[in-house]
């Protein structure tokens, strides 16, 4: 029972962060833009959803609104960067900081609870199921969203517009040579990315039927870890798309995080998140891989020498 509960939590959280990961994949991997506004747009999606829902809006409409709000916030980061020529990292930090107040103002306080409302993850159908089955059903519903986002993103990246978005991060000069303004593609990418992040934020709130202003802290670090793990996996499996890798990366990350939290306790959560990120970065840079390889070689040599002596 304990194992099943843990598994369902990993799936639920893993899938939610997979959507955040897909967003961050656009900025970090495609646009090569270190976007920190994510820490603010994740709760923004949550608060917009929560407030609209409590005001009587259906959950589907509230989720679309969350996406739009996130996209608008991403556009602000983009405008700060391309129009006011502010460094990309700083643009994100500015948006993130501003959103702390914006989110508080929208919520009218640090929390919004909506346990009575019917949502995608809490409705009559789910409450009729046994608890464990309901948990897995929730995970399945979130998975449907993940698949929808992933497929749409994959399709978009294969359109002419998507090609130029990819080229913008790859070689901005090429986009300029085609007579297009790279600024527009940066803003488009940032909007799309933060829209997805906010959408994930709305799902995160539905998971607990509550919006909490502290839910965004550390989102960037978690999402980047998911993206980096995902891209490393996708690199080694030829047929796997990067976006699929990101989804798997998110699940893997959450599995590791959950195990670490079980062993150390939830007080250590953010510390574990930070340490895990360092490990992921070291893996990505090949530092750990090389060390392991060297260690392995040395062992082999030792045993070979031992054989010679015998």
């Amino acid at each position, binding site marked *: 029972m304990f194992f099943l509960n843990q598994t369902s939590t990993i799936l639920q959280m893993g899938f939610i962060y997979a959507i955040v990961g897909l967003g961050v994949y656009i900025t970090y991997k495609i646009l090569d833009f270190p976007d920190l506004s994510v820490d603010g747009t994740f709760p923004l999606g949550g608060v917009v959803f929560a407030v609209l829902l409590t005001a009587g809006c259906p959950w589907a409409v509230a989720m679309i609104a969350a996406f739009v709000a996130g996209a608008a916030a991403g556009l602000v980061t983009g405008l700060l960067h391309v129009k006011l020529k502010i460094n990309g990292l700083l643009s994100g930090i500015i948006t993130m900081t501003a959103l702390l107040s914006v989110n508080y103002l929208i919520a009218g306080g640090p929390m919004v609870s909506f346990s009575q409302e019917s949502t995608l993850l809490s409705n009559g159908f789910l409450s009729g199921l046994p608890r464990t089955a309901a948990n897995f059903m929730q995970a399945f519903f979130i998975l449907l969203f993940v698949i929808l986002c992933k497929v749409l993103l994959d399709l978009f990246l294969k359109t002419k517009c998507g090609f130029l978005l990819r080229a913008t991060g790859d070689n901005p*000069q090429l986009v300029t040579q085609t007579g297009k303004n790279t600024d527009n593609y940066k803003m488009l990418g940032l909007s799309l990315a933060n829209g997805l992040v906010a959408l994930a934020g709305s799902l995160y709130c539905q998971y607990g039927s509550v919006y909490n202003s502290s839910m965004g802290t550390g989102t960037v670090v978690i999402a980047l870890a998911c993206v980096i793990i995902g891209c490393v996996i996708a690199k080694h499996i030829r047929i796997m798309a990067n976006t699929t890798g990101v989804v798997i990366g998110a699940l893997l990350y959450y599995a590791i995080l959950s195990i670490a939290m079980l062993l150390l306790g939830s007080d250590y959560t953010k510390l574990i998140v930070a340490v895990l990120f360092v490990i992921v970065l070291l893996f990505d840079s090949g530092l750990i891989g090389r060390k392991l390889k060297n260690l392995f070689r040395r062992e082999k040599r030792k045993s070979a020498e031992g054989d010679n002596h015998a």
Partner: protein
Amino acid sequence: MLELKGIRKVFNKGTPDESVLFDGFDFSVREGEFVSIVGSNGSGKTTLLNLVSGSVLPDGGKIFLKGEDITDQKEFVRARRIGRVFQDPSLGAANGMTIAENMAIAENKGRAYGLSAGLNKKRVAAYRDILHPLGLGLEDRMNVPVGALSGGQRQVLALTVATMTPIDLLLLDEHTAALDPKTAEQTMALTDRIVREKKITTLMVTHNLRFAEQYGTRLCMFDKGHIVLDAAGEEKAQKKVEDLLALFNEISIECGN
């Protein structure tokens, strides 16, 4: 065709390091000309290309392309009529994208980049036909990321991509400088062929005096923002590499090298 009038360009303006490169600089290129530009470092060759492409703005003067004043046009707007190949092979294409994808982007230049499929399967055959005569075997590697190609292959691809749609002017910015001598030779020969076939007005900056002598219809030598040699047609045909080298040494000695 291309006209620069009274161009002024100052670097490090307002600092003790201020240096005036161009002051009242005039330069014009006629339709169909293939101009080779040589000169020492800091002579203003590359700055000229940057001014024409719009990546550097002049401090004074006007630039006209086919009679239209483009002085205040942004780089990406001018790029719709101007193709450019850089010295750095990584600037010619999106390196993480495949050859076919890069050619699809280039082919769509000047049109809208909307939500229709980026890569049209039927067009890939046409791309192959464009690449085949280049003799580099690129046509068999359509789905290979450009980053996996050699520098020479990338420069040839960059040249192909830059000239895929009709353009008024082609800028070649030392595009063979990063290549080994043999590849540079091949790339230059291909450049000449493409420019002749498509009859594109071309400005080529090069450090290779022999390329400048051998190719093109006009030859200019720059020194500290001035044109010290401008030979076209018969006059150019009579110039030998030795003559160029002698003049080149002369201006270099003036600089104190």
